[in-house]
């Protein structure tokens, strides 16, 4: 075939994508693999490892707040023998710093974006691999090195970083945070950021260049919309964080004075630590959307698949996701209302932030509209999707309080903020990720995850998460600040200890759920029930090939005739309630030139 050009100037992917041959050596098949599916699995394992570390840290934090001065059960005497098993204050600061960092950059990002981005993008758009397979492989290994550097930072003198995941100077500057720990933290995030940009370049370019013939942007599954928009945001805004971290690293290692001010800097030549907050939050606020956009997209698809109905207003959802991506780049200022911001600016940021609720409301209603009067199949994956919709609703509504300057000033740095962002970027992303894994696991490994264990997992995860983070909203409303080691030394917080003890119990339940989930993953990889090619009866392209897919994905690059959510079409007469995207049915499908 020649290199004919289709409309929009896109190349015909049927002509140009090489067929990979399966590697025969363990080294090239499992380690330095260029195959996007293997790289996705590498990201999954990497993410699971770090999730356990991050969640264990959160248990230690919860224990410390619930039972101050008491030895941490089981691991306490092993890890904190000098303090008879009690978590010391300096370790506590390390714990909350590293918990935030690990969960955002080493857990959610690798699993949701690294794993599902890699796995789904080529398969769902009908491509044989990513556009730049080498870059893809390098992206994972750079992430791995970033993880090693972060891991090493625990073992340097004076310990790992202890300045909060936001790494604000002057606390993060060397006079107040001496030692190598925080510098390694910065280097690690640099490596992770570079790896994420490499991945983002691949995702963006692959979606543009390698979509199957006939697949317009509107024919893409909403999962791909979410992942694609996330990649665009990553490619554009991670460099902003990089610039802020670079200046901080230079301050710490070469003695520059970007963020030094006050007595430490010479009069008239001082830097500005608020500068860091600008650079950090331009990216930092976006990070919320970066980790949740893929989850929104995935849940939008899965709700349709398990309601056996076309996604309600799918185009509207795609537009709403895009609108949020754009709006999210100009709202960061609400994190800085307490930095003596000009009143006009606070009003602007309040208005812009509140505007995000409009597109959010659009796809929230679309989700409900998709389920409305559908034939809902309550699989484990669907349970987690519904859980995600619920927690995101709670998180979104509490976000309004933090968007408005008047309430933000009262709630700033309290547990209300902690509860809010854990409901949105933690719980909602986590539940969306879990839903995705239950759904695509049969495609990845050719076997089902246990539905029975999955349901137990859901009830051990969803109610505790809602309880923990809603309780934190109340604590914040009662004035409890975040990051305090022993809050009950203050009279006005003493009555909150009981609530924190209940939170600890809920956290243990959620941890047991995580253990069960991990067991389910590894058990099902080898002993799960075999799934067949398309066990969920879904029309997207990845389900039209064998499970797991061959190395080259598609023997022949498919042509797309239908949207991704074609269910219960009234003109369909063959007894099925779904239509594959690459299936041509006269009178239903669109013709492709």
């Amino acid at each position, binding site marked *: 075939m020649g290199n004919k050009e289709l409309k929009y100037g896109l190349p015909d992917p049927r*002509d140009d994508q090489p067929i990979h041959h399966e590697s025969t050596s363990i080294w090239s098949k499992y380690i330095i693999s260029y195959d996007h599916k293997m790289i996705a699995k590498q990201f999954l394992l990497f993410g699971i490892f770090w999730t356990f570390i991050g969640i264990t840290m959160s248990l230690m934090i919860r224990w410390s707040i619930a039972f101050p001065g008491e030895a941490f059960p089981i691991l306490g005497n092993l890890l904190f023998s000098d303090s008879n098993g009690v978590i010391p204050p300096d370790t506590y600061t390390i714990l909350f710093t590293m918990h935030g960092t690990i969960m955002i950059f080493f857990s959610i990002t690798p699993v949701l974006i690294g794993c599902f981005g890699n796995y789904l993008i080529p398969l769902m758009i009908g491509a044989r691999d990513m*556009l*730049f397979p080498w870059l893809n492989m390098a992206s994972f290994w750079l992430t791995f090195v970033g993880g090693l550097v972060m891991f090493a930072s625990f073992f340097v003198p004076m310990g790992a970083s202890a300045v909060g995941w936001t790494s604000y100077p002057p606390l993060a500057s060397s006079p107040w945070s001496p030692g190598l720990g925080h510098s390694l933290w910065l280097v690690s995030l640099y490596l992770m950021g570079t790896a994420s940009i490499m991945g983002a370049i691949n995702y963006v370019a692959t979606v543009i260049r390698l979509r199957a013939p006939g697949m317009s942007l509107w024919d893409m599954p909403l999962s791909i919309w979410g992942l694609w928009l996330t990649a665009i945001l990553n490619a554009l805004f991670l460099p902003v964080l990089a*610039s802020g971290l*670079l200046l901080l690293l230079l301050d710490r290692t070469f003695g520059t004075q*970007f963020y030094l001010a006050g007595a430490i800097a010479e009069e008239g*030549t001082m*830097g500005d630590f608020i500068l860091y907050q600008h650079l950090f939050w331009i990216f930092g606020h976006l990070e919320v959307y970066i980790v949740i956009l893929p989850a929104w997209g995935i849940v939008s698809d899965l709700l349709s698949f398990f309601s056996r109905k076309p996604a309600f207003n799918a185009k509207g959802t795609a537009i709403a996701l895009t609108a949020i991506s754009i709006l999210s780049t100009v709202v960061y200022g609400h994190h800085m209302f307490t930095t003596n911001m000009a009143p006009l600016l606070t009003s602007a940021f309040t208005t812009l932030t509140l505007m995000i609720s409009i597109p959010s409301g659009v796809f929230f209603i679309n989700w409900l509209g998709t389920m409305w009067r559908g034939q809902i199949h309550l699989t484990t994956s669907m349970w987690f999707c519904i859980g995600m919709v619920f927690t995101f609703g709670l998180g979104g509504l509490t976000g309004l309080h933090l968007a408005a300057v008047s309430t933000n000033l009262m709630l700033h740095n309290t547990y209300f903020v902690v509860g809010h962002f854990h409901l949105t970027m933690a719980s909602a992303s986590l539940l969306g990720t879990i839903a995705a894994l239950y759904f695509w696991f049969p495609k990845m490994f050719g076997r089902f995850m246990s539905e029975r264990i999955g349901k137990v997992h859901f009830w051990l995860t969803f109610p505790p998460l809602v309880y923990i983070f809603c309780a934190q909203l109340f604590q914040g409303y009662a004035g409890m600040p975040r990051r305090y080691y022993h809050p009950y030394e203050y009279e006005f917080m003493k009555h909150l200890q009981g609530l924190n003890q209940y939170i600890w119990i809920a956290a243990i339940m959620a941890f047991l759920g995580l253990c069960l989930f991990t067991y389910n993953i590894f058990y099902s990889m080898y002993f799960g029930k075999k799934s067949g090619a398309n066990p969920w009866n879904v029309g997207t392209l990845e389900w039209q090939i064998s499970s797991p897919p061959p190395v080259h994905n598609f023997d022949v690059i498919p042509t797309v005739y239908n949207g991704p959510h074609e269910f219960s079409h009234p003109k369909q007469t063959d007894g099925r309630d779904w239509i594959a995207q690459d299936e041509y049915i006269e009178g239903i499908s669109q013709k492709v030139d």
Partner: protein
Amino acid sequence: MSSSQTSKSNELGVYIVISSLVMLFSSLGLALLLVRDRFSVWPPLGSPEPHVLFGHLQSIAWLALSGLAFFLTSKKQAKPYFTFFTLLILVLQGSFFYSNIVTHFNFNQNIFTSFFYSLTTVHTLFSWLILGTLLYTLHNKEFRFFKTVSKLIHFLSLFWLFYFYSLTIY
């Protein structure tokens, strides 16, 4: 993929890299503007006077190198002019740093020198990376990719010229 399709894909990849780098330099520029806004006199009183001539000449050499690439049609044409400009840039870079180092202009003297030295160093490291990439693409006979990378330099050189000027303007 066919070579023309590969080339188009590479070009797209380079444009995304450009977008990322523009954001990196823009945010560094934003940092500079936010800091400068706090000073009525810039550089702050007592700051050393940097030698900027070689820096400006270097930026112009970069612009010329990348600009000429638009008119080249073959690797054979590219080689001599690439060699000439690479040497010129390296000489100008060396002169720039030497002339400033001999005035004992250092990183941590104050906020102005912090910006001046850090950002010019970042730019230098970046330009070496680009020179290496250009050399690699020429060596591997990927002339179309050479031209694509040249576009990247051209854009960033324009950006840097403006940035360097605003960094050092009084």
